[in-house]
């Protein structure tokens, strides 16, 4: 499971000016669930997921993956997770097979198990025809598939998807959705960030709506609908963000 408490991230620029990307967010994500981080661009979703994947260090707060602290033992955390992001590209000068194999070896998998696991995954994602294709020759969909297989090769208990369907066509996006649903059914803890409401409605059991580094509301989709008495989730999302934006502006004026 993922346990996040008061997670804060402050960036500083050249002139020492501070930008609060995360302002003490807290949430929990359980195994066998898809937890959605929903928010407009710049809400802090990617920063939160980068901290969970140990790429960034938090300024304050606590984050644990399966009980392992991301600050104290990042090496152990990385063995527990699979991270797929719109930014996590694949190497242009490596084939799909080489790429996945490299990450399997980095995870310390034995050659036999790695070979077996890769055969299974390449077959499952219908990628046997691109085994020897270089990254530079792949389409966006193929690249994202390789990226997902790379994240799944060591069979991690926690999977982090950061806007994983951004830029993908409907067919590939649906394949990604199916994969995430299958992973959920396998009992994996999946955290999924997006700014598209329909994706979240389809996939997520619980969601946290983020804006300007804060979680402004969280719960199951039903709980949120009941709380705000709006059944249309897109409208709910829009109104929550708009209301928070107004509060923010009035605070800024003060």
């Amino acid at each position, binding site marked *: 499971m993922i346990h996040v408490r008061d997670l*804060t991230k402050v*960036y*500083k*620029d*050249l*002139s*020492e*000016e501070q930008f*609060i990307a995360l*302002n*003490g967010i807290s949430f929990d994500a359980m195994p066998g669930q898809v937890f959605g981080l929903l928010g407009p661009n710049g809400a802090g979703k990617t920063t939160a997921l*980068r901290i969970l*994947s*140990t*790429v*960034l*260090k938090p300024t*304050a707060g606590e984050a644990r993956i399966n009980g392992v602290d991301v600050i104290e033992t*990042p*090496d152990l955390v*990385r*063995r527990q*997770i699979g*991270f797929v*992001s719109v*930014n*996590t*590209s*694949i*190497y*242009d*000068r*490596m084939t799909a097979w*080489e790429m996945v194999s*490299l*990450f399997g*070896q*980095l*995870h*310390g998998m034995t050659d036999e198990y790695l070979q077996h696991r890769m055969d299974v995954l390449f077959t499952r994602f219908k990628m046997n025809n691109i085994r020897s294709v*270089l990254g530079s020759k792949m389409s966006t969909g193929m690249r994202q598939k390789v*990226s997902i297989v*790379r994240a799944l090769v060591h069979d991690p208990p926690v999977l982090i998807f950061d806007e994983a369907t951004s830029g993908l066509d409907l067919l590939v996006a649906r394949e990604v959705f199916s994969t995430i649903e299958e992973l959920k059914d396998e009992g994996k803890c999946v955290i999924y960030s997006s700014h598209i409401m329909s994706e979240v409605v389809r996939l997520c059991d619980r969601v946290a709506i983020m804006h300007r580094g*804060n979680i402004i509301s969280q719960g199951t989709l039903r709980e949120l609908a009941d709380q705000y008495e709006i059944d249309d989730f897109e409208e709910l999302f829009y109104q929550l963000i708009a209301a928070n934006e107004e509060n923010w502006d009035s*605070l800024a004026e003060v």
Partner: protein
Amino acid sequence: MCWKNVKLIWFRELRDQLRDRRTLFTVVVLPLLLYPFMGISLVQITQFFREHPTRIWIVGRNNLPSVSPLIQDGEIGEEFAGVNERQLTELILSEDGEQELQDLVSQFKKVSENGSAGELIDQFVQRQMATKQADLAVIIPKPIEQCSSTGEQPEEANMFVFVNSASDKSRIAYQRLELILQKWQRAITDEQLAQFNLSVESTNPIRLLQSDVAQKVERQAAAWSKTLPLLIMIWCLTGAFYPAVDLCAGEKERGTFETLLSSPANRAEIAIGKLLTVAAFSVSTALLNLLSMGFTTMFVLSRLSNVPAGGILATMGPPPFQSMVWLILAIIPIATLFSAISLAAAAFARSSKEGQYYLVPLIMGSMPLMLLPMLPAAKLDIGSSLIPITNLMLLLRGLIEGNYNEILPYTSLVLLVTVVCVYAAIRWVVHQFNSESVMFRASERFGVGAWLRHIFKDRGDMPALGHAMLCGVLILVAKFFVGFAVTMPQSWTEFTIQTVVVLVATVGVPALLMSIVLTRQPRLSLKINLCRPSFMAAGLLLAFCLHPAFSWLSKLVLYIYPPSANVDQMNQMMSGLFDNMPSFWLLLLIFAIVPAVIEELAYRGFILSGAQAVKSPLLAIAISSLFFGAAHAVFQQSIITFCVGMLLGFIAVRTASIFPCILFHATHNGLTTLSMKAQSLPNEHGFRWLFDISADGAIEYHVVPGIGLFVVGCLMLAWIYRETMSRLERDRLEKRRLRLRREMTVTSTT
């Protein structure tokens, strides 16, 4: 560190780079093609130059002496030039009746009366040369025979040669003509000596016979010993830089870095894996260049050995085999050092394009260290052994030349310095990879207006690191330019005013102004805090206790880096000033008290306060000490002042006040000034237990009391450390309290 991960990353990066056509071209194809291409071009160019004769325009041919005629049948006489030279020298002869000759001669006569050739004549001749397509003009305005027949030196010039120094062809023509004229003049001299019944041999009382005792191999080694180490350095640097940019900035650009960072490999393993890749390419580039250049040189030299133009190159010969062996061995540490530096610099770049911009500063930064060994007086000694890159180049030079006895005593020191530098560079790479601000540097939109607004509007209580650096650089720049403006003082009054004004203007004013403009608490920024009287007393006593140690350090530095003649001259001038000083107290005021106050305000005050923005106090002290050392113009003095600065920085950080530092600084400088006037002390002074006065009037501390004082000084420093521990603890708690309050404010606002 998991070496299996390092190996995996290393092999991945190697495979990745080997699949990159650009890298392969730069590292493999270019060296293999470049030198053969250059060699073929050189051979072609040499032949091209051989076929170009020189055109010499001669005016006043009939004024040449009839004996030993220089020109025969419109060509240079056979006795003054060989067949080849005659073919390459085409003469354009003017006729007697030409108007231009008359004009030129008449004008030359006028100019000759004034004693110099005028610009008008030069311009006129240049136009004529262009019209006649001549490379050189020789004008003989009046008969030479009449002058020389008297057997005396002509009173004025009787042959004018016009050369265009801006034209290569003209300069070559002059060189050819000069050789011809030397032979011709010798022939005329011999003729005249015969007329006066003097033997030709009487004009040559000395006959030189030069003999080169160096073996052919030694000559070749000497010729290559300076060039090859420099080339190796450049190849290693360029071979490392481009893969480094691709492996860091390129990965950031392509978005694959995040993929790697989220893998089980930690940052250090990633950094080392990439470093090994860059080093492998750096070694390959240097090796391939070396081999390609070696083979090409052998080929070109074999072709040029029969060509006169290739004479110099031909005498060099190919690089000796042993030099190649030493170079190959030296490539590994050099490549590792440059690879680490390149990788650390490239890690900072956000894109490949930005990464390319860092190459020039990198080359410019390392070039002085590479060129230092090229100086004729450069040799491997203790001083040069401590300078990275320079020491390795000098060691290589010694190895190639076979001077093993000369370099052997310093070899271990060179290797130690190189290992330390390589280790430091690798640590820097790992630090860069661990630094979030480096790896995920956001694009900086820098605007002067916004920056100025930020400086005034958002200024903090204390200066930032940038402010400290700016202050240090401003002081250095001001000192540099003022150093040119001031002249050596002629009197004590002039010296006093100049020293004080320069110190206040270049050091005091920038620090004071910046503390007022850039901070909200100028007094705290300058560390003008009252502290316990015991710390003040400790500052004063420490200067006494540690003065013998600093005196020995000074001697050690002067032993390692002996002062140049200029520094000696400057010291003598200063001593001269001291001899004429009106008052010893004035001397103390100028050399001890004023610098202590001004420099402490600037270096331990503003600069150190700003540098303390970095987390490590040691790094902050080092930054302020570096500026303090660099501000002293003499290199040897800079090393000593850096060490003094480290000690003063420690006192300033622990006591949070500059007053103990001022007392230390003033006392230290006062003692140093006093030691310069030690010869004026009576023979039976009361400090014979501590020091003697040497023949040149300097103070020589005795070893045992000196060490004893040093130990006491160390104990005092330990006491300051212990006594100030509680204050630092309070500071840390105060900072924590402020941070929590800020976080609570942010939370309540949202």
